[in-house]
């Protein structure tokens, strides 16, 4: 059973690569700057947000540009990956009805594509790092860890959404609202210490809060994450991933009948 799944995956790996490279081609078709936009976009957004929050709403956050970029990197990846994964199965209905393809290819493709975008946005952070007095430490080499946690968390949610939305199309509309709420519940541009205690309790239930805090700790605060931090993040990522795979597996059998 497991060996079959692996064999199947290896057989369709070229398709996965092909679909991702097509996504890239489509995304930057006919734009003059092309891939450069993936780096430029977060930089421009950061400029806007920094201006807004250093003049209108004043939060006392040192190195605000990095604070914002680290938060938005994680959140934007999560929101893009899950949102595009959600529509991936329904969007590929014509193909799924015609040939046999392992269906998980599609949410996986979208998550990986968003992951590539994340890597470009990461370049933006590195550029800003040069201009901001953040002391680089060796702990920065741990940054892949929170990103990997976030990836598996997003993949799980994406797989669950992509399969459930086949049966209940309302999810498409509902989820975009949910994402907005989720954004405000994530400390992307505000400091956690301005929150009242009861609100903080809610925020702590938000997995993205933990991923982002982990990311900031190793990237800008030079603070070693504890075992507890790791366990919390790992639990969120693992539960989401396995639940997502389970839901997908249970429901995929009848996809074709509802597409």
């Amino acid at each position: 059973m497991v060996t079959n799944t692996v064999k199947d995956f290896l057989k369709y790996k070229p398709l996965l690569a092909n679909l991702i490279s097509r996504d890239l081609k489509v995304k930057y078709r006919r734009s003059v700057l092309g891939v450069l936009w993936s780096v430029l976009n977060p930089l421009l957004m950061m400029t806007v947000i920094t201006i807004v929050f250093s003049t209108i709403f004043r939060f006392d956050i040192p190195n605000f540009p990095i604070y914002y970029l680290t938060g938005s990197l994680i959140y934007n990846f999560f929101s893009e990956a899950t949102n595009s994964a959600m529509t991936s199965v329904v969007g590929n209905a014509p193909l799924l009805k015609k040939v046999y393809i392992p269906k998980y290819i599609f949410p996986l493709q979208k998550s990986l594509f968003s992951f590539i975008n994340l890597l470009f946005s990461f370049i933006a952070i590195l550029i800003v790092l040069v201009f901001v007095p953040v002391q680089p430490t060796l702990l920065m080499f741990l940054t892949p860890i929170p990103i990997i946690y976030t990836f598996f968390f997003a993949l799980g949610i994406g797989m669950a959404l992509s399969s459930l939305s086949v049966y209940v199309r309302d999810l498409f509309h509902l989820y975009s609202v949910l994402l907005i709420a989720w954004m405000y519940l994530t400390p992307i541009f505000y400091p956690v210490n301005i929150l009242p205690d009861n609100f903080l309790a809610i925020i702590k239930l938000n997995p993205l809060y933990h991923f982002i805090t982990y990311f900031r700790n190793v990237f800008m605060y030079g603070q070693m994450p504890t075992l507890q931090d790791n366990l919390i993040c790992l639990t969120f990522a693992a539960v989401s991933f396995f639940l997502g795979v389970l839901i997908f597996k249970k429901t995929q059998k009848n996809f074709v009948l509802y597409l």
Partner: protein
Amino acid sequence: MNYIIEVNDVTMRFNLSKEKIDSLKEYFIKLAKRQLKFDEFFALKDVSFFIQKGEVFGIIGLNGSGKSTLLKVISGIYTPTKGSATVRGTIAPLIELGAGFDMDLTARENIFLNGTVLGFSKKFLESKFNEIVDFAELWEFVDVPLKNYSSGMVARIGFAIATITKPEILIVDEILSVGDFLFQKKCEERIQALMQEGTTVIIVSHTIAQIEKLCDRVLWLEKGHIKMLGDTQTVCETYKLSGHI
């Protein structure tokens, strides 16, 4: 005895929801009004048969008798509601030619896209690229977006890609009607060449003459049931006598 294809008690049920309920609100309204009923439709009912390696197996029947559904169950697109279909070998399904073609991309790009959809590796496709274009006779247009192709040309490319490997099982669904007669002849020759090399073939056709010419055994489906299963001559004779020519 190990058969290459085993179809065991396959039942395929579809819910023919008269209006498709796609949203929760609708669902609850219908549920409250007790209008939530599905008309069940059995496209296949308790179908069992076995195919041996190297056999050329025909499937006949009227429109809506479940032929295409059966092929989709065998090629893994549908999971049967009940029963199982076991396949031991690689399948080249010529059910929908050119699945996954992107009309905005050129033929060259589409060969790689469609090829990977069928599970071929990039390296393999590169090595077979010339052969594919040769067979489809489309060298002049290889860098033209597919949207500018005629439907016959698209089908040629699709056929050329799908038959580029030596599959262990070839599934042919009424596709020999694509292209002009010269290309049809070429397709038939290719299928026959594959048969000679021991490929197991499943053919669905409305042209009884074609079935009689090619097949070893024939399955006759009627409304999702097996009406008859046996050697080509007997089944075809009865089929013709029953009023379907």
